[in-house]
């Protein structure tokens, strides 16, 4: 049974539908990268895993199971137990996620409880420095602060760590260091990771599986190399093909034409249809059901019939 199971989750804000029937499974010990267009609902999905959404968000449909427990229907006490024992979160803003009025040591002590060994946990993120213990968050660099946050999230050896762009605010070297730390700590503790990121190469390198979101749904998921190297969904293909870092100098990259959708209600068909080179009539008004293509689960009417590469897209002649 999977550790995290998101089933047909629909989350609505005042005038936006952030998730439109997203489904995702994360198994014990697995690392899953969640990528996708900005605004596609990654953060919303990540927060939903711990029911950490703002009050303006409404769950309209679907459910989220963590270790078999329905997160949205749990009484408060059980929910807290779940968060405490089974879940860990790391957010994008490293300094912001630490209490600015408390010394780092005190915060860790608070999280670890009486018997906790603060130095040990800081040592695990290579910060065993008394000066760090006495520092206030604003006196730390972004990388150091993020490592403290990781130490706090990993202190209880959770089953699942949700990391929402934990390295986006850091510069490239620090970024690498921090990512390494998260993955090695998680491997040690047998923690599953849900890694929300824009950094496709990093996701490809580090994650077992990748889930791609588009328009509030997970449109493709499967083994990382497969999904990014051999995409089954046209959007994944477009995404994978457009990393600037990959392009040689002077080459013009072709982005996905058109604009990302903004949903206000359920999308009538495939949300990607208006921008899809392969869209056909039914894509417009029939919601695609999940299909299995190779090792991937895909939401696309035409997935089975397409052969797509990360940089070139071609239609398989039947």
């Amino acid at each position, binding site marked *: 049974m999977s550790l995290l199971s998101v089933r047909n989750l629909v989350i609505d804000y005042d005038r936006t539908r952030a998730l439109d029937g997203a489904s995702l499974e994360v198994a014990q010990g697995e690392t899953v990268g969640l990528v996708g267009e900005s605004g596609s609902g990654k953060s919303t999905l990540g927060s939903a895993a711990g029911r950490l959404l703002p009050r303006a968000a409404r769950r309209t449909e679907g459910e989220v199971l963590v270790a078999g427990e329905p997160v949205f229907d749990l009484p408060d006490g059980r929910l807290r137990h779940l968060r405490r024992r089974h879940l860990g979160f790391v957010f994008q803003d490293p300094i912001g996620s630490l209490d600015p009025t408390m010394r780092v040591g005190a915060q860790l002590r608070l999280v670890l409880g009486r018997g906790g060994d603060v130095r040990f946990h800081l040592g695990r993120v290579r910060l065993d420095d008394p000066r760090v213990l006495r520092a206030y968050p604003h006196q730390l660099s972004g990388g150091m602060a993020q490592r403290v946050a990781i130490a706090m999230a990993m202190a209880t050896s959770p089953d699942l760590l949700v990391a929402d762009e934990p390295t986006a605010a850091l510069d490239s*070297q620090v970024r690498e260091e921090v990512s390494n730390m998260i993955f090695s700590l998680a491997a040690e503790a047998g923690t599953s990771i849900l890694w929300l990121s824009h950094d496709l190469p990093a996701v490809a390198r580090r994650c077992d599986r990748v889930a791609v979101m588009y328009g509030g749904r997970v449109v493709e998921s499967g083994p990382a190399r497969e999904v990014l190297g051999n995409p089954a969904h046209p959007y994944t293909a477009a995404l994978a093909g457009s990393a*600037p870092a990959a*392009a040689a100098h002077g080459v*013009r990259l072709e982005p996905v034409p058109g604009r990302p959708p903004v949903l206000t209600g359920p999308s009538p068909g495939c949300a990607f249809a208006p921008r899809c080179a392969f869209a056909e009539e039914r894509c417009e008004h029939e919601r695609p059901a999940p299909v299995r293509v190779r090792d991937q689960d895909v939401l696309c009417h035409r997935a089975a019939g397409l052969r797509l590469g990360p940089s070139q897209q071609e239609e398989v002649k039947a």
Partner: protein
Amino acid sequence: MLELDDVTVTFAAGPPFRRIRLDAMRHVSLSVGEGETLGLVGESGSGKTTTSRVALGLQRPTAGTVRFDGRPFPRRRRELAGRMQAVLQHPHWSLNPRMRVGQSVAEPLDVLGRTDGNAVTEMLEHVGLSADFAGRYPHELSGGQRQRVSIARALVTRPGFLVFDEAVSALDVSVQVQILNLIKDLQAEYGFSALFISHDLGAVRYVADRIAVMRAGEVVETADTRTFYTAPAHEYSKQLLEAL
């Protein structure tokens, strides 16, 4: 277009007396030619943002001179209206929370007294946002959407000089490419100059003609893009490229 000559910026932090002096920029000389994009890279805290503030005339250098269009900055900022624009680093505070997206994007036009009927929606669509975003408030946007709005605002008046400070780092790659392409296209169309600041060497390579590397307030290397990526001269540049 823009010339920084031996610019030093020193910040004094803390209360008077025992102030901590900190050189955010040390003897920096840079120039951005007409129609050229200069990429500025370097680690966090190396002085990139400070450089851009000097370039925008928001920060007076402690030493050194700045010339924009061959002249020092005019005393009245107003004379530069519409000539320069910037996309600033923090998406969270880049938009006035009391103004609808449409109003924010239209503001630089208003300042110039131009009211261009479709310019706003057109520009929003260029950055991948549909016209109905014009009626939204910033808190209803995701991080990437906000970033795109500030880009739209910066580009709407087609200024001669632009600063992009981490303009695309909050965006996913496909949108990133879209924006980078937009920048390139507009540059091809009317030839503005730009200072493009980013951690992301890939993105910099994609848009920049020349690249400057900063470290601890100093420019350690300036080279054109191809040379930089193939044969970096400075040790630090090599380190940077390895991480890519």
